């Protein structure tokens, strides 16, 4: 049952991240589908991929996006 909730969180987080006008909020919301997808990989019998995805998808990529937003413009005009 919990894997269906995780799939719903993945799709909802992806849509919410693309709907924000503040780009810093969009960068932080990118981490939610990444973390939910890491749990989903664990349920799909791939624990090594889940370890990599948990670090890359929920910590490294949002930090990269936040750094790019910091170097450019924050509010989408």
């Amino acid at each position, binding site marked *: 049952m919990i894997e269906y909730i995780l799939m719903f969180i993945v799709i909802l987080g992806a849509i919410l991240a693309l709907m924000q006008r503040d780009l810093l909020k*969009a960068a932080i919301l990118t981490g939610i589908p990444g973390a939910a*997808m890491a749990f989903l990989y664990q349920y799909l019998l*791939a624990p090594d*991929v889940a370890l990599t995805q948990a670090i890359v*998808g929920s910590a490294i990529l949002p930090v*990269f*996006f936040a750094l790019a937003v910091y170097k450019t413009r924050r509010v989408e005009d």
Partner: protein
Amino acid sequence: MIIDTQLASLFTAVSLVIIGIYGAVFLDNLIKKVISLAFIGDGANLFIIALGYKPGGIVYIFLPGMAADWFAQHAAYPLPFALVLTSIVIGASTTAVMLGLIIVLYKKYKSIKASKILGEL
């Protein structure tokens, strides 16, 4: 449940790819385009992982006491997982390169709108 875990995961992966293609085509901000491209890569990885899943199976670790025939019938298929492990890291590094190019474009054009950099259609 009516649909099983594998089919629902495949639908989730296809939905992620569709959301990513929509964002990469129709959104105007360059950082949102890069976020959409990252979603496309995540959808492709989830699709391959879901293809290797076996319902009711076990994790592909051969522990002492298991019979080899029983293990070969019940373990998940491990080859796509080993390839996706490489694909995740390469996707993160290509995303970093794209963000660096966006910073260079912002220093030249003072804007991150694609319609302003490439010119209005």
